[in-house]
């Protein structure tokens, strides 16, 4: 079994190619699915043949030998057995198809997550959180029909008609020839009509999604519309949009349904042709297309019953076309994500720093921050000492958050060096360094999980320790009032945590883990004055134990800090000592 890895998928030129590669993940199941599909067709052929012989023996042939076929109980048992096999085979096929699609989807998820782990923060620019969450929890799931049904059916649509043509050769050559001649016409017409229809239905699908999105968007923003007294107007607007959509869709569908109708046409006309041809043959109007000069009813029954079976796999495939259209848009998203280049990491071999050497000094020398290759602010030059509280000041866009990201080792520096206790250290992706960092982001980061898990994050603490940290962040009463207290699950439907409350819990987490360097991005933006003062006091206590606090804000006054670093987007950073 081959294991498709990320580099194979990254080389894909487009979404279709990616889907082909991804389909190879379930190669073994696909093989089995093809085999069972072939077996299914073989059973159908056998059932048809047996029925033809039974009818023939009962109605057509003179009873020369007794008993004739239909009087043998064996033939009935065989027919029952074949029919049972044909009825039960799909059970196995579904099982196979489902496990194939699960395997493909699992692998795709793993590949995406693996790549996300290398991309880290570079993910944030091109993708929003919602897009990523939707990709991994909705879009990849929605490819089920494609991998479970479309892919296997695609092969069967080739194989099954071929088997039926071969089976028909038992009787004569004209009917198989007829089928064989229409067979290439079907894909040909599918290409002519289908390509247009596929493009049209793709467009239609986009329209439908857009309309669905419009409705969901308006439902999400229903409050704004209610406040503006505009719900009635919006209702009319939605109606007009829907009507517009109806007109455009029906235009598209008139074309799109043609391809399905075409298959229907071939299927119906082939039955009619075979029936008329056979009828005239029996009436001795002509002698053409059969191996024997005299042939029995069984041949006629056999050919007539197989004719519709010839087009059945193609018709099934046509019905699954939507799965393909849905999946190719998912594939485009996937490809865009996995082809994102990981950040160019600075070599990371300098881990000579002892694990827990106390921090005596952190110096930045011409440290240039930025995203990708774009510098975001002038290079930084300053020194941080234990016990210091430092304020990072500057207008939005001056690179405050980027500097904090860089210091936390989350973002590679473009150039310059960072010295820890006078020795140069590469902090980017440096696990040992990152373990000593406490970081609170502008939007407090909280998992949809219990308060306890949010605080501990995989490390062990007692409840007393947790409450001490919560108290430091003045969040102890808040947590005590929650149902279930530390076991309260934070979720997007709770409504229990306001922005300020979430921030205090995130702050408690920072205090709990006692970092050497504490980075805070706009921590007081959502805090009321009283809490903000308590908060500054607790920072002071934290620094008294030797910690360093670097806090970014565009508001706090400088007098509570030991050092103020003012960032300007264009001019050089100024350092002043308070």
């Amino acid at each position, binding site marked *: 079994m081959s294991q498709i890895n990320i580099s194979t998928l990254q080389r894909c030129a487009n979404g279709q190619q990616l889907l082909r590669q991804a389909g190879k993940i379930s190669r073994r199941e696909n093989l089995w699915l093809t085999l069972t599909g072939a077996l299914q067709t073989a059973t159908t052929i056998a059932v048809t043949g047996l029925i033809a012989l039974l009818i023939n023996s009962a109605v057509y042939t003179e009873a020369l030998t007794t008993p004739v076929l239909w009087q043998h109980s064996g033939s009935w048992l065989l027919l029952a057995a074949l029919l049972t096999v044909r009825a039960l085979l799909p059970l196995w096929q579904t099982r196979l198809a489902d496990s194939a699609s699960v395997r493909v989807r699992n692998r795709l998820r793993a590949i995406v997550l693996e790549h996300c782990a290398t991309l880290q923060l570079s993910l944030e620019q091109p993708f929003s959180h919602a897009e990523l969450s939707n990709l991994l929890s909705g879009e990849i799931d929605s490819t089920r029909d494609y991998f479970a049904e479309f892919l296997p059916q695609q092969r069967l649509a080739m194989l099954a008609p071929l088997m039926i043509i071969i089976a028909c050769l038992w009787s004569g050559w004209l009917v198989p020839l007829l089928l064989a001649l229409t067979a290439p016409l079907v894909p040909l017409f599918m290409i002519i009509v289908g390509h247009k229809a596929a493009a049209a239905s793709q467009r239609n699908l986009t329209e439908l999604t857009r309309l669905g999105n419009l409705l969901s968007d308006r439902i999400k923003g229903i409050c704004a519309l209610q406040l503006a007294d505009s719900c009635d107007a919006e209702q009319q607007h939605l109606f007009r949009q829907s009507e517009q959509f109806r007109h455009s869709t029906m235009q598209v569908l008139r074309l799109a349904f043609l391809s399905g109708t075409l298959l229907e046409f071939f299927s119906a006309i082939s039955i009619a042709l075979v029936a008329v041809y056979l009828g005239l043959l029996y009436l001795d109007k002509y002698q053409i297309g059969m191996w024997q000069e005299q042939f029995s009813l069984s041949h006629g029954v056999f050919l007539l019953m197989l004719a519709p079976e010839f087009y059945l796999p193609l018709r099934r495939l046509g019905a699954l076309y939507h799965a393909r259209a849905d999946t190719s848009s998912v594939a485009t998203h996937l490809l865009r994500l996995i082809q994102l280049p990981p950040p160019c990491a600075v070599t990371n071999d300098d881990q000579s720093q002892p694990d827990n050497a106390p921090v005596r000094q952190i110096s930045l020398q011409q440290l240039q921050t930025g995203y990708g290759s774009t510098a975001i602010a002038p290079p930084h030059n300053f020194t941080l000492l234990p016990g210091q509280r430092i304020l990072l000041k500057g207008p939005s866009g001056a690179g405050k958050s980027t500097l904090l990201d860089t210091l936390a080792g989350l973002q590679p520096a473009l150039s310059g060096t960072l010295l820890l206790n006078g020795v140069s250290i590469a902090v980017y992706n440096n696990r040992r360094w990152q373990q000593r960092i406490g970081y609170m982001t502008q939007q407090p980061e909280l998992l949809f999980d219990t308060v306890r898990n949010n605080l501990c994050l995989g490390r062990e603490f007692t409840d007393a320790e947790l409450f001490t940290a919560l108290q430091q962040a003045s969040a102890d009463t808040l947590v005590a009032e929650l149902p279930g207290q530390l076991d309260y699950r934070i979720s997007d439907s709770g409504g229990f945590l306001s*922005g300020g409350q979430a921030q205090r819990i995130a702050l408690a987490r920072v205090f709990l883990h006692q970092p050497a360097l504490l980075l805070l991005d706009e921590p007081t933006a959502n805090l009321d004055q009283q809490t903000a003062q308590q908060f500054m006091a607790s920072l002071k206590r934290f620094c008294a134990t030797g910690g360093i606090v670097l806090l970014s804000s565009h508001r706090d006054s400088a007098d509570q800090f030991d050092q103020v670093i003012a960032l300007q987007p264009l001019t050089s950073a100024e350092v002043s000592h308070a």
Partner: protein
Amino acid sequence: MPELLKRYFQLLWQQRGMATLGLLLATITALAGIALLAVSGWFISATALAGLSLAAAHGFNYFAPGAIVRGLSIARTFGRYGERLTTHEATFRVISHLRSEMFATLAKHNWQEQPLNSHEASSRLLDDIRHAESLYLSALVPGLVMLLSALLYLATVMLFLPELGLWLLLPLLISVAVLPTLYLRQVLQPQNTLHQQRSQQWSDAHSLFSNLRTLILFDRLTPQSDKLCQSAAIADQTEQQASNARQRVQALNQLVQASMILLVLWQGIEGFASGRLEGTLLLMLLLLTLGLQEVLTTGSSALAAFALGYRALERIGQLSPVHPQPDQRQFIEPGNPAIRIDIDHLSYRYPNRQQATIDHLNTRLQGPYWYWLTNPSGRGKTTLMQLLAGQLQPQQGQITCSGAGIKQIGMMPQQISLLQGSLRFNLCLHQHYSDAELWQVLKTVELDQWASQLPRQLDSWLGKGSHQPSGGEMKRLGLARLILQDRRILLLDEPTAGIDAERSVRILQRLRQQWHNRLVVISSHECGLIGEDDVELRL
């Protein structure tokens, strides 16, 4: 019957011409398909038997059956095409009304107590809307076609071979009634479980991507990824089980159909042997059965589709309460130039909380003053705002407004929602304002520069993938909306969070001029912005 379902059928009744035509064409198509097989079967058996004797072969009129066969194949082809077009047309016509009316149903409800913005609630709603929309197309049409075809089939069989008809009664009943019911169970039961598990998966994914920094620093990226994979695997498993269960019902269906084939063959041959059935009709009856089976297979999921649609409409209907809470605010003397709000013994407790968030509040707010709510978070600032705006209804107490009508209270919520659409749409929200008015307002909130940088200025598309305003810009957009709405009582929930202090001061300065004779209530943490004449209000 749920109100919306009744409404659905009303809408369908309005489109009865198209809907009936669709149903008719669907039936014709199905019957033509079955008849095509049957007549072809009869034709070749008849010719084959006639061919045995030269005289019979010579006298056989093959023109009529040939023409019928060709006619049926054409009827089937064009019937299918017409059926698809008409059923879709009818569906879309109903959907247009249904969509907008479902929106109206939702708009009647206040979403403050039970938030709609959670992923689970909104994805459920969208799922439901989809199911509701396909009620006619995937439930009514295939279901009715199945019933009708089965009845006609039975009648035909009875005509030629009554004994066989009796034999087929049971398997037909199972195919038409029992199996669809079984199928329905297999679909409905796991649907809820799967929905919950997929929601869990979404929230794990969301946890992962919105906590990147924390997870990297704590080296928790891998465990969280594993957790996501695990919850995806659980949901996949449920999906697999459900699909297996459905397939089991389908297999049962196939077995019943196999038994029908055996019955027809056995009874047919017996009938022929005993002279009750002509030999030419044996193949016809068999092919009739095969033709019907295609229709039965398509129809077996109709009941499940109906149940899904029914439940969906029921759930959407339940979202809006049967007895909507009446607005308890009182409005007196709307023409009075002096604006006043009297709050008497006001109490409010959230349904899922034990303590009241607002407990017997008594206060009086008077224009033209600005009132500042500066309490610590979690003490009910937002709740009071929503009570004043009528978004929540108190359990006790009374709010009386004088000098302003019900349409004169405007609010800027804490969370400003951006709607998909142009900047103009996001400002106007379906009301009409001139370009000059819009630019004036943008200038007041200092968004004019930002807006003039947009590629198509006021007509630029905002939102995901194009121009996503930052947090501070969103707040200012919310302010701009409120200014345009021009209300006499203005409620502002955290209007300056995320806006630079200097800019906040400048914007508030302008607002003070603009709103000099109105009543303004602001909840904010930023005490530095409180003006000299303003009143600080503590809850």
